[in-house]
């Protein structure tokens, strides 16, 4: 690792002040992505600002049909929560047990890794991403490869999810890293169907053609006739864009079948 200055602020204001004063600062949440990145010297920040000592940023609470997850809530805590079983199931399949004991939802969605799991839930479960000063609709939050609507120095304080009537997350994991080659969250709420896809494109998105087909006929068979445009999908050593397009359909069918 390159040398950096480590800071451990105890308030959000202190954290943002440190970031504003840093030459090239970065926030540290759980560190499950950032620390390996630093070790590989893929990043060389001047200052690492640890959010781990700021109180009030953890916990999963259910209030009037909305589940609020604090930005520093560990994946393991979400996995053990019961308000949205599909969200807990998604969290239980991130990385391994040790990653789930350290990694946080805020860190995950601030990074916007195209293969992370949580982004599928953010776009499919009517999420709202909260920062100290504003709220961002889940559908507007991811803007590109490792890009989000967050401003420089802005910190995710919590993420709200709407409790759906039913939902299921299906994922084709990379066998080594457990990142999603493709992951699909299908959620049904009244007559509405949301299909959130991660792993396939530059960032998470909703597959609207699949949603329209499933809104008419909520059955695995309804997916068959819908073509998934893979022209902009990721292609790498793990999967071609065409294969990822195929997986979107397969995983959507599996999720619909699980919901029943």
């Amino acid at each position: 690792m390159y040398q950096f200055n480590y800071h451990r602020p105890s308030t959000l204001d202190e954290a943002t002040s440190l970031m504003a004063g840093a030459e090239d600062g970065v926030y540290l949440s759980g560190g499950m992505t950032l620390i390996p990145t630093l070790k590989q010297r893929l990043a060389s920040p001047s200052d690492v600002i640890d959010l781990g000592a700021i109180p009030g940023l953890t916990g999963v609470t259910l209030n009037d049909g909305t589940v609020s997850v604090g930005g520093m809530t560990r994946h393991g805590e979400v996995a053990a929560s019961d308000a949205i079983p599909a969200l807990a199931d998604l969290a239980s399949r991130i990385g391994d047990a040790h990653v789930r004991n350290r990694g946080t939802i805020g860190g995950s969605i601030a990074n916007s890794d195209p293969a992370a799991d949580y982004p599928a839930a953010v776009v499919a479960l009517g999420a709202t991403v909260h920062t100290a000063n504003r709220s961002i609709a889940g559908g507007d939050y991811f803007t590109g490869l490792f890009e989000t609507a967050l401003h420089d120095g802005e910190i995710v304080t919590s993420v709200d999810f709407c409790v759906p009537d039913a939902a299921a997350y299906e994922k084709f994991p990379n066998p080594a890293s457990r990142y999603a080659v493709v992951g699909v969250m299908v959620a049904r709420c009244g007559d509405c169907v949301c299909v959130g896809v991660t792993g396939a494109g530059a960032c998470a998105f909703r597959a609207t053609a699949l949603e329209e087909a499933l809104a008419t006929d909520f059955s695995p068979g309804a997916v068959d006739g819908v073509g998934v445009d893979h022209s902009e999908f990721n292609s790498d050593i793990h999967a071609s864009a065409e294969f990822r397009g195929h997986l979107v359909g397969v995983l959507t069918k599996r999720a619909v079948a699980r919901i029943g």
Partner: protein
Amino acid sequence: MEITLTVNGAARTVDVADNALLVDVLRESLGLTGTHVGCDTSQCGACVVHMNGDAVKSCTVLAGQADGADVTTIEGIGDPDALHPMQEAFRDNHALQCGFCTPGMIMSAIDLVQKGGGSLDETAVRDGLEGNLCRCTGYHNIVKAVLAAQSSM
């Protein structure tokens, strides 16, 4: 900078570099070399310790993040005359060959059993140890040992 943490029940104050890792503090500052560095890329689990009651990979925790934490290493769970039940189970089931992964395996397995409520089956143990690699391919006996320890812990 200076950090203070509790390691195996004793308060320790250590002067560390800003970019120091918890595993380096344990091994080099405190001489607790039972915690191993295998891959140094958060994959192999040889460096697993308990931090505030959770199994974590100490190669992927900055020393500063452990300031104020309660850390337990392999040295803190038993001694040669009074092994931890998980250590006994590993010995009884021949759950190690070269032994390099064993400290991390045992620390992960203890956390797994403590949180498993006595209901772990073979699949749950294999899933729970996903973050620990054994290059001697000794998983079969490791799983047997963890299931045995579930009864004795």
